[in-house]
């Protein structure tokens, strides 16, 4: 089937998709940021930001008159952080657009999603601020923690569908309605996936690397103007990517954009609702937690995949 796809899609179509997919991801991501802040506001019994607040923030930050750079690597880091996600979006199939998903697959996507973290880490390292370095050390530790259950899930899903091709995985899930969804077929994996999602988004109780009261927002400590704006963009992409990936793996993707977005927003809501009523774990507690429960559930889930 792969070889067929290789030839079927025309170049111009791919180019259009490559352009469209990140743009859509960015816009949807911004709405997700708004959604997140609104949920937080509701939990905290207040009104919350206006509708276009995330957009205002990003535009304002990019339009700041004076901005501080600590060196070339600082710039490159932010570019890598944004660019990594822009690239990752094209590997994430959405209704009507497969982009280049067939050439990458889920393993490539998993590793591509580490590029922004690495870029951010480089940029922050150049800032020569130990608060930032501690933040990065914590962020990477958290990555070590949540990526292990994550790869178990990826393995389980790929093993279940006998392919690493996301397009194929989604197609298989859409064959028999809800019954063929990953979440129904492998509920344990889906459960472990939720925990991983929480860690991946870095929300409480797994928010160690921002931790304003401890390390003054860690990686963001020296970010001004477009640097911070880049991180805001990255956050929007991250929310979108994580949600759509989860939907693609467990909730049958979306046959239409409406379906996909509805599912994604539901998925995003879950970690957000958890996030606002929990403090953050310490680093080692976080690692212990991730290596215990989600890993256990994930392994059990894979065992049932059979």
């Amino acid at each position: 089937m792969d070889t067929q796809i290789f030839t079927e899609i025309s170049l111009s179509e791919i180019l259009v998709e490559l352009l469209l997919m990140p743009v859509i991801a960015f816009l949807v991501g911004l709405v997700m940021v708004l959604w997140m802040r609104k949920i937080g506001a509701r939990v905290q019994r207040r009104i919350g930001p206006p509708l276009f607040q995330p957009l205002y923030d990003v535009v304002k930050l990019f339009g700041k008159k004076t901005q501080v750079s600590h060196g070339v690597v600082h710039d490159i880091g932010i570019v890598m952080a944004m660019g990594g996600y822009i690239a990752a979006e094209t590997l994430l199939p959405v209704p009507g657009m497969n982009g280049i998903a067939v050439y990458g697959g889920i393993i490539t996507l998993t590793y591509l999603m580490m590029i922004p973290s690495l870029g951010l880490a480089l940029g922050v390292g150049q800032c020569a601020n130990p608060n930032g370095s501690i933040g990065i050390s914590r962020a990477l530790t958290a990555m070590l923690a949540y990526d292990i259950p994550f790869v178990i899930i990826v393995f389980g899903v790929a093993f279940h569908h006998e392919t690493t091709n996301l397009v194929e995985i989604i197609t298989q899930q859409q064959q028999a309605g809800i019954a063929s969804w990953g979440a129904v077929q492998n509920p344990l994996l889906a459960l472990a996936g939720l925990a991983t999602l929480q860690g991946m988004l870095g929300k409480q109780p797994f928010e160690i690397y921002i931790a304003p009261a401890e390390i003054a927002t860690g990686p963001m400590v020296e970010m001004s103007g477009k640097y911070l704006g880049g991180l805001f963009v990255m956050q929007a992409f991250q929310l979108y990517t994580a949600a759509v990936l989860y939907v693609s793996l467990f909730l049958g993707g979306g046959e239409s954009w409406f379906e996909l977005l509805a599912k994604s927003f539901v998925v995003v809501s879950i970690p957000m609702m958890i996030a606002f009523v929990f403090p953050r774990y310490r680093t080692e507690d976080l690692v212990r937690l991730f290596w215990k429960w989600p890993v256990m559930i994930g392994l059990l889930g894979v065992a049932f995949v059979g």
Partner: protein
Amino acid sequence: MKEIKVENRREGNILSRVFDELNEFCRARSLFILHYCTGCGAIELPPVMTSRFDMERLGVQPMVTPRQADILLITGYVSIKTLKRVMLTYEQMGSPKYVIGICSCTVNGGMYWQSYATAKKLDEYMPVDLYIAGCMPRPEAIISGLRSLIRNIELGESNNWKKYYENYDYYLGNQQKLFGDEWQTPVDVIGEAEHYGLVGEGTYGEHTEILQRVQQPLKPLEMRL
């Protein structure tokens, strides 16, 4: 202090004007205030921030470090020790930046006019965009102050941050008077003014000369082969 003319910023071609307009529009709606409790007025900020008054409605949210913030809230008296940090913080913030003097103490020293430890007139050390008087002003007053700041920004009338670059000598002079001639922050304000084309008539002067004589030059570390 020399009176400076606020430049007409709606210049250039249509595209850049539209871009400027968009920037102003978004800037007015997204204001990050620095989480820095300089004095007792800070006690009224949590109510402003939290569920009852909820300043996030206005697009205002607290930020942790000066790099990220747009608004420096001087919440009340500033002791001289704090004033030094406030100066550093102000200089580290990215322009456009706005200073709001909350509480009467920022205007004239307030209750502490006799005190040897607090600075009296904030305006001498940094350009203040807005005062919210009161001891301390109620959350409603702060919200209304923020609203008027937002309005001013949208109208393009809140350009006091430029004053700091354009009249740097005046501000530096006042700082030197209080902190001594050896005073130097790690921020290269003159370099910044030159880099961004914000040099004005009052950027250089006798005080900057003193600074340039005594300072330890803090140039960026450029990459070199």
